[in-house]
């Protein structure tokens, strides 16, 4: 165990490297509300927030509930000259289910439904014990790493903007009305944005480590007894 402020240039203990520019910084425990930025490129290094874990868990559950609504309720309805059609989110993805376009169906369902759900579950799995001050679950490390890898591939918000543009495109052709799923999806975007704002990867890695997992004997302790 290390005491705060001490570091070793031969092993790298007690140091933090900026992921963007490789500049070395001396590791320090931040108080909630503080923000650490790289001295060279200003990249955000860590920003612990009060009650962040509990909030991320709550937001993850909220996004799961909203996703259930978004998938099963009608998404959009269209009508013209007595012909009508109603589609759910599932219907949108299955639009590509003919022949060569089939794999795109799978990819679309994954990016708009699968990955947001999976990320919510992974975050709950990682943070639930930590928020109660208990030791993290056994697979917390790969779970949180997967959640971070999948972050750019979860495209729910892009989908909603796409919906808005598609509606303008068919606006002249037919009458369109929104189903409850559309509003659930809009709510989902807000919830995900809030959850991302509270997620500071470095803080979560520190918490997993302090919680007793992946211990390499290098976590910082506040006591000088180390």
């Amino acid at each position: 165990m290390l005491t705060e402020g001490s570091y070793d240039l031969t092993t790298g203990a007690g140091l933090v490297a900026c992921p963007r520019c490789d500049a070395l910084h001396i590791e320090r425990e931040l108080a909630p509300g503080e923000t650490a930025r790289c001295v060279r490129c200003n990249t955000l290094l860590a920003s612990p927030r009060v009650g962040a874990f509990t909030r991320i868990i709550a937001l993850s559950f909220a996004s799961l509930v909203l996703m259930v609504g978004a998938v099963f309720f009608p998404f959009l309805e269209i009508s013209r000259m007595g012909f009508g059609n109603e589609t759910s989110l599932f219907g949108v993805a299955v639009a590509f289910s003919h022949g060569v376009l089939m794999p795109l169906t799978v990819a679309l369902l994954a990016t708009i439904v699968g990955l947001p759900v999976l990320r919510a579950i992974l975050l709950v799995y990682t943070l639930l014990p930590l928020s109660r001050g208990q030791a993290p679950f056994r697979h917390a490390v790969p779970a949180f790493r997967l959640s971070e890898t999948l972050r750019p591939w979860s495209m729910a918000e892009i989908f909603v903007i796409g919906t808005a543009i598609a509606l303008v495109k068919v606006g002249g052709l037919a009458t369109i009305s929104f189903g409850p799923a559309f509003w659930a999806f809009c709510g989902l975007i807000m919830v995900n944005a809030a959850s991302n704002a509270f997620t500071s990867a470095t803080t979560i890695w520190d918490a997993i480590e302090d919680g007793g997992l992946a211990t390499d004997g290098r976590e910082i302790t506040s006591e000088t007894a180390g």
Partner: protein
Amino acid sequence: MSEHHAPIMTAHRAGLVGCRSCGRVWPEGQQTCLRCRSDLNPPDRRSLNAVWAWLIAGLIFYIPANLFPMLKTSTFGGLAGNSESTILGGVIELIHYGNWGVAAIVFVASIVVPIGKFLSIGWLAYVAGRPASVKDAHRRLVIYEVVEFIGRWSMIDVFIVAILSALVQLGFVASIHPGPAAVSFALSVAFTMLSAQSFDPRLIWRGLPLRSRKD
């Protein structure tokens, strides 16, 4: 940040390697980060091979994405005409109907952004590790961050095609089906995202002169 005048010590220069996923620093030669279990790689120009490979794959798929139709529309059972529109054709059609705003969004998302991304990633990979001033390095990092942020938004055109095809199924009156370009466009976007993700931004700072630096 810019008021900082002491030379910056980097993990690489100190003979260490930093973890790009959690920031922990390890002795050079360590293969995986013991905290977050991700692979450790020193900032090395060899990692640019992956960037080029994904970028070329993305470029290749961008060609059919523009040549083949994105949407196939038939109105009144084909009596009022069947039309197949490519990406550019769709934009022109929107302008015809006076939807300037939407035309601009689609044009930017599916033509300006992808081409800008190809050029930016190619340029970043070309100049990575070459001599640069501190100001250059900061500008390159901004370009990298813009590319990284904007990359996924190109997928919007694929979503629009999916929504239209699912929604506009009014039998005789009008129906819209996706064209083969949708798949190659989606792949092109995915490959360019992978290309941007494989780029190691630490290389941007490798070319800075060692002496008389003011960063």
